[in-house]
């Protein structure tokens, strides 16, 4: 099998390329011009293609002899508009080019960000409703990922392609151990929202395996969530992150119900004072806060459809991720989940 992998030098991408090569597949790895691929350990079975999906005029040529597109490219930094162009518009350009080629299968990296977390009840799974027009309150990343899926579905339907959308939870691993879902830093204190709240994590190597299986197996059209089987609570994971990362910071918990009540009061006050125009601080916005509510996460459908099992359990994943972490991993920057 020959796979075209976009976003190939990204955190997930480099692991997907490695996993595809480990199973003997040929890989055409698409990276942005100027990206260094030295040190990624790619062998001669990886053909590097330096292409920018936003501007490249001849994208169809990238699909020569390609059996499956594994589309991971997205942008999580920059303005809302920059994220939309690099994620949704880039996908539209790539798939419109694919329509004139012989490639007939797409494996797309979706995101948990597309779900309507306010309406999620008890368990968040593939049946949870997706965001609708309220998504614009959620910020650029959620908007871009939702429209990326919509454009992929439209073009897959129009061209009768097989489309497998894998929606990972928070992808983590070495160098990427800070999970935005843990909570917030307030000076010397790490505030963890909810003591028993489970984090929808997937270790990058486990996640990469799921993408390889989705590329290999004939499952028709499918949408599958990717989370590991052993999921830690935000409290426990934060503890491991502080301890193993050598970060000296106190860990305190704030019950979700308290935060939720605070947000409700703030919303009421805002409405009374400013009407519908009122704006709340990000952490008090109901749609943002909902991503911290206590839920369970299921990978049943993924395991049934692809026969996937996480290669690394939680303890092994922690050992692997913090193995080189004499240096503290404080990469508290934004990442998609």
């Amino acid at each position: 099998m020959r796979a075209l992998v976009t976003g190939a030098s990204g955190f997930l991408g480099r692991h997907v390329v490695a996993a595809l090569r480990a199973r003997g597949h040929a890989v055409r790895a698409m990276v942005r011009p100027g990206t260094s691929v030295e040190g990624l350990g790619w062998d001669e079975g990886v053909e590097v293609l330096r292409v920018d999906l936003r501007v490249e005029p001849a994208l169809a040529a990238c699909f020569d002899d390609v059996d499956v597109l594994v589309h991971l490219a997205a942008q999580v930094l920059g303005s809302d508009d920059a994220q939309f162009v690099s994620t949704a518009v880039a996908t539209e350009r790539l798939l419109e080019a694919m329509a004139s080629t012989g490639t007939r299968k797409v494996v797309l990296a979706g995101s948990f960000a597309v779900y309507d977390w306010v309406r999620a009840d008890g368990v968040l799974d593939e049946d949870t409703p997706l965001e609708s027009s309220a998504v614009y309150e959620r910020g650029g990343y959620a908007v871009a990922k939702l429209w990326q899926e919509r454009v992929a579905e439209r073009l897959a339907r129009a061209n009768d392609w097989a489309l497998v959308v894998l929606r990972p939870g928070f992808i983590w691993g070495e160098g990427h151990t800070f999970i935005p879902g843990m909570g917030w830093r307030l000076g010397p204190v790490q505030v963890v929202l909810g003591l028993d709240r489970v984090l929808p994590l997937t270790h990058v190597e486990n996640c990469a395996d799921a993408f390889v299986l989705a590329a290999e197996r004939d499952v028709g059209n499918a949408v599958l969530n990717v989370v590991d089987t052993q999921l830690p609570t935000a409290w426990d994971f934060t503890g491991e992150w502080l301890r193993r990362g050598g970060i000296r910071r106190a860990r305190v918990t704030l019950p979700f119900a308290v935060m939720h009540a605070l947000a409700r009061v703030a919303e009421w006050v805002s409405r009374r004072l400013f009407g519908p125009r009122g704006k709340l601080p990000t952490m008090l916005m109901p749609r943002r806060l909902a991503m911290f509510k206590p839920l369970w996460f299921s990978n049943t459908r993924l395991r049934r459809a692809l026969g996937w099992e996480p290669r690394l359990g939680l303890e092994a994943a922690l050992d692997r991720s913090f193995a080189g972490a004499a240096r503290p991993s404080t990469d508290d920057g934004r990442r998609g989940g």
Partner: protein
Amino acid sequence: MVGAGAMAREHARGLAEVPQATLAAVCDRSRVRAEAFADEFAVPAWHTDVAEMLDAVRPDVVHVVTPAPTHRAIAAMALEAGAHVLVEKPICPDLDQLRALRALADRTGKALLEDHNYLFNAQTRRLVALRDSGALGEVRRVEVVFAVDLLGAGSPFVDRGAPHPALALPGGIASEFVTHMAYLALAFLGPHDAVQAAWDRAPGGQPGAVLSALVQGRHGHAVLGFDAACAPPQFTVRVLGTRMRAELDLLEPYVATAVAAEPGARYPLVAMRNALGQSTQHAAAAVRGLWGRLGGRRGPYHGLTELMRESYAALDAGRDPPLTARWIDDVNRLVADLLATWPSS
């Protein structure tokens, strides 16, 4: 609306507050971008072809909010289709193209407007009112500083894969912002006579990241300073008159003034009065700014709403819009003179 990017969203948010306006359609080369914009702002139609949209919608006004190199052609199409046109700055890359567009607008009897949004911000208007009332005295010097970090991660000015179109134009990064500086200077200085300027690149090599210019007017001069690698951000106008010095911050809602010492006045008391006065104004503005943010006011872009509100009201009543052809031409003449000092040109 032609274009569905970040500035188009600002136009759409402003239009929602203009009673005469209904956003009838949006057009973007990318279907998904046009569709998402239409979904976000409840626009009834989206298109990917300008001519097709003009034909289908027959709009009264067309907003051109696309990359600068495409402005002229789209504005011309809209004027030919019988629409008034509001174009994002810079309206055209050179004066000849602007003159041709102006001639077309005159022939079709339609307005050709450029977005001079900061002129309509409440702070700017307060400062203009101070000038008009004579409180400033005679304006001798205007200083406009636009110093913002435009080169951070994710910025289109550092994006090598899809370089910002401005990087290939005379003026580089500054070409995107020099119109703002030009109209803010001219608002207090009047038409200019001559220009001197020096340019520099950013540490990363991006062209037009630094501009220092001296603009000579008939009774005073303006100093323009642009820097694309500054933090914390600053966008200020300072006007030095013979009776008062006044400064406005376009990123925060304040105007601070300091009264000049009068002949015979005791200087320590004037200094103390100025210090107390300015501190009070800054503190009040900080509270007003926070209140405005919590209240969902549109922040630095609120002038765009006012510009559109007044322009639509005037066009609807058959009056001349607030930005006259002569004003827009004066501003663009200064922009052209500034860009003529660009070393590569």
